[in-house]
């Protein structure tokens, strides 16, 4: 795979090396700015909130907001039946 890509990079050794570095750097940037931020919250490493059994960790964010806006004194997630 990498040999195949290497053969298709244009120019001599120097040009190939340069474009390979640019390709790898572009891939890392794509991972850090797009893929990982999307992936991170979906994995079970880092969910610091308590929430009702009916609400999944991921859906908590969407559930909590509207519930609080409509009932500021007793949000849905804090109701006894969700415990």
């Amino acid at each position, binding site marked *: 795979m990498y040999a195949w890509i290497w053969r298709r990079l244009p120019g001599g050794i120097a040009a190939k090396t340069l474009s390979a570095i640019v390709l790898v750097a572009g891939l890392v940037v794509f991972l850090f700015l797009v893929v*990982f931020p999307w992936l991170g919250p979906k994995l079970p490493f880092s969910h*610091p909130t*308590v929430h009702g059994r009916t609400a999944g960790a991921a859906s908590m964010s*969407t559930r909590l907001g509207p519930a609080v806006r409509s009932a500021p004194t007793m949000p849905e997630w804090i109701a*006894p039946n969700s415990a």
Partner: protein
Amino acid sequence: MSTEGSRERFRVDRSGRRPAWRIACRTLGELLVTAGLVLLLFVAYELWWTGLTTRHDQHKLVAALRQEWARGVTVKDPPVGSALAILRIPRLGRTFMFAVVQGTSTADLIEGPGHYPGTAMPGQLGNFAIAGHRTTYLHPFYDINELQVGDPIVIQTRTTWFTYRVQNIPGTTARHEEIVSPDDVAVAYPVPDQPDPGKPPTLRVLTLTSCNPRYSAAQRIVVHALLVGRQPTSEGPPPALAGERLRGL
């Protein structure tokens, strides 16, 4: 030599091309090595890069909060994602300081510790409940398990310093530190662990929640504290912060 001959035999077939199974094996190997490197990158992202982005967000939040305070207006119902107070916990570091944001969604907690909407505001009767990351996003509550009975937790708002102290909550089953299941929302009730959340609170409680154990979200670690003092910001930092290096004041 026979070994040389066999190597030659595998390298090319009669048409002068490598056999397909060799190309397949090598590609598979390259993909696996690549996957390993991507996983290492992901670990670096989670443990290091998320801290950089949160640090950046915190600088912006603290600056915005100071501007708001300078204007002399207290926002009664802070919008989700904006800062509402400054949190200091000397036990977690002499320079430990975070802007607490309103909201506990994924996006809110990326910016810093988040206030559970609908729970009490700082100093109010009830439960001022805050969630914060343990290992990622600048891991504000990484050492939350180090908190001991009597440790101060100081909340600064525009007008007031509120000093809470870590302790069991009297009249309830809430211990100063609890390990609970992720669905145990009772820790954030106006009266912690009180089965009837409609019962009016008589105490001013602060609750911190985070993941437990570290690098896992299997449980939640919870720390409770009670309000023990308040003083106007004009009087300077409270005794609990005496001798601390107050960053960003």
